């Protein structure tokens, strides 16, 4: 088995008096899309915040074997850890292409200096490949304020992928999308995964997660209650009662029908 691209071990987070995460271990291996699911408030977003350095945590975080647990958030990103936000958080003063350019690999220092001193059209790092991967080439010149929610989500994802990260953490990419957009998103995710970018996917759309992921981790109250292949996880009675409600055992049948 190849060694993990992302390895988070024993991640614990406390907010005031609340233990938001206790000792969570998650690994993402090359070529994998790992799903992270659980009821609202289970600590899924907190986990992403902890791994990316936005929430103070204990435990260790490694990307491609390199310990990044002590780094500030931007350094973790530069070490190959990309993420998206639930609320997308685009830079509203910049066009879509410029939004991506911010996250693209940094031009050499002398390029930056030359840009400031010459009146030539500013050089932009290539962002077209990320826009194309998500099918939004036509939006390059749009401002974030002019986009639909679905388009904003796609731009947010393109921004996470544009710097060729080693692994990407996606926080509810499908929330707020309509049926068509959600389906479209599923295709894009699969394609990006096949192109070799491993991902950790949080989403409430269980079918999206089960259909897209190779491996699923289930959180409840900040603890891992189940982990394994989607087919196994969806039959786990603890998962069913935690995620779908205690009287929801009937729901499995629907899952199997689809």
């Amino acid at each position, binding site marked *: 088995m190849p060694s993990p691209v992302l390895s988070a071990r024993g991640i614990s987070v406390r907010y005031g008096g*609340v233990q938001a995460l206790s000792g969570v271990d998650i690994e993402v291996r090359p070529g994998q899309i790992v799903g992270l699911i659980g009821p*609202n408030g289970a600590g899924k977003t907190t986990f992403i915040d902890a791994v990316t350095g936005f929430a103070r945590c204990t435990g260790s975080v490694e990307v491609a074997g390199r310990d990044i647990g002590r780094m500030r958030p931007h350094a973790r990103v530069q070490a190959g850890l990309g993420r998206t936000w639930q609320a997308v958080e685009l830079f509203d003063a910049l066009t879509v292409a410029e939004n991506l350019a911010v996250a693209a690999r940094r031009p050499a220092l002398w390029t930056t200096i030359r840009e400031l001193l010459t009146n030539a059209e500013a050089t932009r790092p290539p962002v077209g490949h990320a826009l194309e991967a998500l099918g939004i080439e036509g939006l390059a010149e749009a401002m974030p*304020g002019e986009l639909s929610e679905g388009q904003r989500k796609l731009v947010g994802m393109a921004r996470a992928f544009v710097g060729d990260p080693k692994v990407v953490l996606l926080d509810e990419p499908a929330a707020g*999308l309509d049926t068509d957009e959600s389906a479209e998103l599923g295709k894009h995710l699969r394609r990006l995964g096949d192109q070799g970018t491993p991902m950790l996917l949080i989403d409430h759309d269980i*079918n999206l997660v089960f*259909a897209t992921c190779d491996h699923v981790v289930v959180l409840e*109250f900040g603890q891992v209650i189940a982990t394994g292949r989607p087919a196994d996880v969806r039959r786990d009675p603890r998962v069913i009662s935690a995620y779908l*409600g205690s009287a929801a055992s009937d*729901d499995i049948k629907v899952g199997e029908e689809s």
Partner: protein
Amino acid sequence: MTQPVLRIEGLTAGYGTVDVVRDVHLEVGKGEVVALLGPNGAGKTTTLRALSGLVKVSAGSISMRGQDLTGLTPAARARCAIAHVPEDRGLFRGLTVAEHLRLGPRGERLEADLAYRYFPALPAIADRRAGVLSGGEQQMLAVGRALARRPSLLVLDELSLGLAPVIVEQLLPVIRAYADESGCAVLLVEQHVHLALEISDRAYLMAHGVGSDSHDAAVLRRDRSVIQASYLGGQEWTPTADREKERDGDTQ
């Protein structure tokens, strides 16, 4: 037929230029508990926020006992006897439990005793700040504060967020009892579908920003297919089906 307490007609609302809910119709009558169900991102919370004036309504109308709420600020709507407990519980970390139960709009006195009666655990922690309470205590305070306002309409958004199911199972019957005793109309959004249906009279289902017609809760309790269709969608999503086939092929 008597006039409903809350009537929402053709509501379209969202953030910025983006409409998140489209053409939603909904009614809640006196003493009735109505659940608004659907998967995350379906627009349930946005509907509640539009009702309280927190998001922009681009079409449709919302009225309380026949009075149109259009143009009223969130504070003014709250003063129309709407008590909205939002997802984040709407508490103030720096204020004590007792202070929360004194904090009402001008000309409205909160009935702290009512909160203490429905939630007997609250008096013991009356002098503690909301920021140091446990999640369950915070939720009791949030609901207790709402009840103490003796509202005509109680709006509850995801009471169960971050709470152990056992606590949710205690909280929801209190809501039912209050509605029965006071005649208050209740509109609730809840992810624990089965718990919600147990205390509801009727339910509306939402998916991708669009609402359904009213369903009788008793029917939904018996026949789950309607809900499952709303939560899990149909079969039209090809990637899902493809992947499922692959996987089934693997396992068999």
